């Protein structure tokens, strides 16, 4: 226990970790303040989006009227009626958005999309895909069923949605990479500054020392995760008036299924914890193997950037442990199974630690 506390203290004394925690808190608070200030932008954006659609429909109406003046035709008459109907519904929707009547807004938006799909079938102009509109209707139905307003996933200050945004921004290969680089210093620095000679001269077995290092770094990593989750929850929870069942907000998975935001957060926390264990085992492995800050850091950088490039090119395999480093994607990807993912990460972590212990058991210090 004493050794564990000593290792924790050593990392904290480097100041880099404390600074990183501070920057994380500042980042989350800054984003919360920015989103709070930009709440009106959500309404402005929505109004702008539907105003553009309204302009398109209005242009069509003018054209149909002009055509009917020249040559009356039943088909054009039908199109004009459909356009006028859609135009009226968009106006109603814009009014609901401006008056912040979210329940009316959801219903009217569904009506607009229904009419828009029919209008598109008549070759009318409405610049949204039918597939997207159908998805939007499904989401609105789900929201009405749960009695929840629609949230802007980027600007929302509802606790669960804000937490999701933070998870997307911080718990990704780049966020984990920065943390690992900071934590990794405490392993390699001991070899570079030759402090390890003193440590190895103490009556402590090497496996015990490596395990202590692993547990202390993991605790610091978990401490960072705790701060990320708690600050991103507490800020909106304290300062934003939330609806009762805001944690049952429906989120769409990659296959188009709905999962509740509470389910999303639960899985995100579990994946983050296991990925943290796996990441720390990687630092222990490379740190004790290479014993050099620059080389270890470079390997971590290339590993994470390479993984990011591979994922961005669509090569997503549930057997690749690094896939779980993009927590948001890991949770929303229907192909991933929580039990398999966490077992894989835990199993590999144990294996990596055993290998690290075996490799360093009798290795000397140059």
């Amino acid at each position, binding site marked *: 226990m004493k050794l564990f506390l000593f290792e924790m203290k050593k990392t904290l004394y480097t100041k880099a970790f404390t600074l990183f925690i501070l920057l994380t808190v500042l980042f989350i608070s800054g984003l919360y303040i920015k989103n709070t200030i930009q709440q009106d932008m959500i309404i402005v954006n929505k109004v702008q989006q539907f105003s553009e659609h309204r302009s398109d429909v209005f242009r069509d109406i003018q054209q149909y009227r002009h055509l009917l003046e020249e040559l009356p035709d039943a088909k054009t008459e039908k199109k004009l009626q459909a356009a006028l109907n859609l135009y009226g519904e968009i106006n109603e929707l814009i009014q609901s958005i401006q008056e912040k009547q979210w329940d009316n807004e959801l219903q009217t938006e569904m009506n607009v999309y229904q009419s828009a799909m029919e209008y598109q079938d008549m070759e009318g102009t409405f610049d949204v*895909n039918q597939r997207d509109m159908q998805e939007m209707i499904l989401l609105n139905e789900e929201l009405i069923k749960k009695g929840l307003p629609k949230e802007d996933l980027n600007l929302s200050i509802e606790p669960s949605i804000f937490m999701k945004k933070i998870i997307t921004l911080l718990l990704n290969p780049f966020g984990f990479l920065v943390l690992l*680089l900071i934590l990794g210093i405490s392993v390699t620095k001991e070899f570079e*500054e*030759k402090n390890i000679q003193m440590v190895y001269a103490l009556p402590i077995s090497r496996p015990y020392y490596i395990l202590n290092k692993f547990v202390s770094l993991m605790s610091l990593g978990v401490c960072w995760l705790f701060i990320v989750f708690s600050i991103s929850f507490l800020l909106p929870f304290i300062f934003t008036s939330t609806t009762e069942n805001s944690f049952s907000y429906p989120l769409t998975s990659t296959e188009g299924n709905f999962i509740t935001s509470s389910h999303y957060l639960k899985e995100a926390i579990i994946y983050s914890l296991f990925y943290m264990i796996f990441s720390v085992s990687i630092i222990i492995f490379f740190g004790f193997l290479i014993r050099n*800050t*620059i*080389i270890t*850091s*470079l390997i971590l950088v290339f590993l994470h950037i*390479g993984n990011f490039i591979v994922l961005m090119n669509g090569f997503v395999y549930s057997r690749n442990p690094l896939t779980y480093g993009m927590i948001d994607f890991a949770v929303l990807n229907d192909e991933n199974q929580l039990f398999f993912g966490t077992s894989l990460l835990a199993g590999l972590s144990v294996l990596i630690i055993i290998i690290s212990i075996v490799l360093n058991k009798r290795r000397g210090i140059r």
Partner: protein
Amino acid sequence: MRGFLFECKKVVKKKTTLIAISLSILAAIGLYMFNHSVAEDIEQGNISRLESFPEIFLNFANETKEEKEKAFVAGDTAKAEEFDRDIDHYQEAIVNYEKLKKSFEEEDWETLYEKDFNEMQIFIDDPNGAVYKIEEQELSNFTIRATYEEIKILKENKSKPFIQNTIYQSFLPTIYDDFTGSSLEQWESETKRYGREGFSFLIQLIQLLYIPAVVLIGCFIFGNNISTEATKKNRGMNLYKVLPYSRLKLFFAKYLSGYMYLLVYSMVMMAIPLICSLFTNGLGSLENPILVYEGSQPSLFGNSLNPMVDQFHFIDYREYFWKVILFLAVFSFFMYSIYFLLAIQIKSATISLILLGTITYLGMTHLVSKFNPFIYTDFHKIITGETATLTYNLEITYTTGLILYLLVGIALSLIGYIKFRFKRQL
């Protein structure tokens, strides 16, 4: 000069530096191999897709033949004639798809350019009447015009194109398109470009911020020659203090040796994809075109992009690469001067790297001003005028970036020297 040579020698003698360089080279080779295999897969995928079309149409033709015979037996000659026309149409489609497949297999780009060129002519001749849609969303006229001109240049130069995940039009993606939802996904998938030849791949990498990443890593490897000699356990700097050697000379020997290695390292990392391509698809042509935006004129209603009116032109790869190399020299000087300053102050190379990376990222994304040097980090967007067009600030130019990097770099180097000269305990 001796001090400079001594510092240069020290860097080369370090095993860490050599391993770090080797690792970087291996990573660049890995990146090339990965991209090459993805590009090959996409090309094979396109050919496989084309293989299925003749089979589908042959099936249609056979089914229609049966229908025709039935109609013939029933004495419905009008229907039979209609089926005949359908069969002709299906057979024509089979021939066309066979030809297209052959062109893809033999990489007969001239035929493919000719086909694309002819198919796009209608959109150029009648920009208001003919529209190209991805699902229900329209493609901008600017993209159509730019793609048309690009094909024209590629055809004239007999150059090879980028590989794209489509068997139809290989559009050039521009900033003028505003797709959403599934259309955006489809558009991105079809217009994502993979360079197979060395020069094309290098351009693809430059667009993915390869150079800033290489410079950042280069600073991390070569920018610690003062900080590594001023740690608690290594007090190498104290030795210099007792020698009859001026601090100015010492500073510049250390500073310039690191910068020189950074520059060489960056150039080597740029050359790796080119060297790799010599073993696969070759270097490609330097005559290939790169789209340059000419910006948008402000209207009475404020700033907005006008796809019908806004102009563009193309520069060739040769001009583009010269600009990149010059920019690389001043950009690396600028980044190195910041890193060196941080390294004098912080000592930990990893922390300096994280700080520099964070500052660069925040500077790139959060402050749009021609005086913000980080806004010029994305070389490609600066050279092609994309940043200037998107921010409606035509003063964000390549030349401004060059001057700014040079001035800020010199200023930061001076601050670094002052810090080094007057700091009591390094």
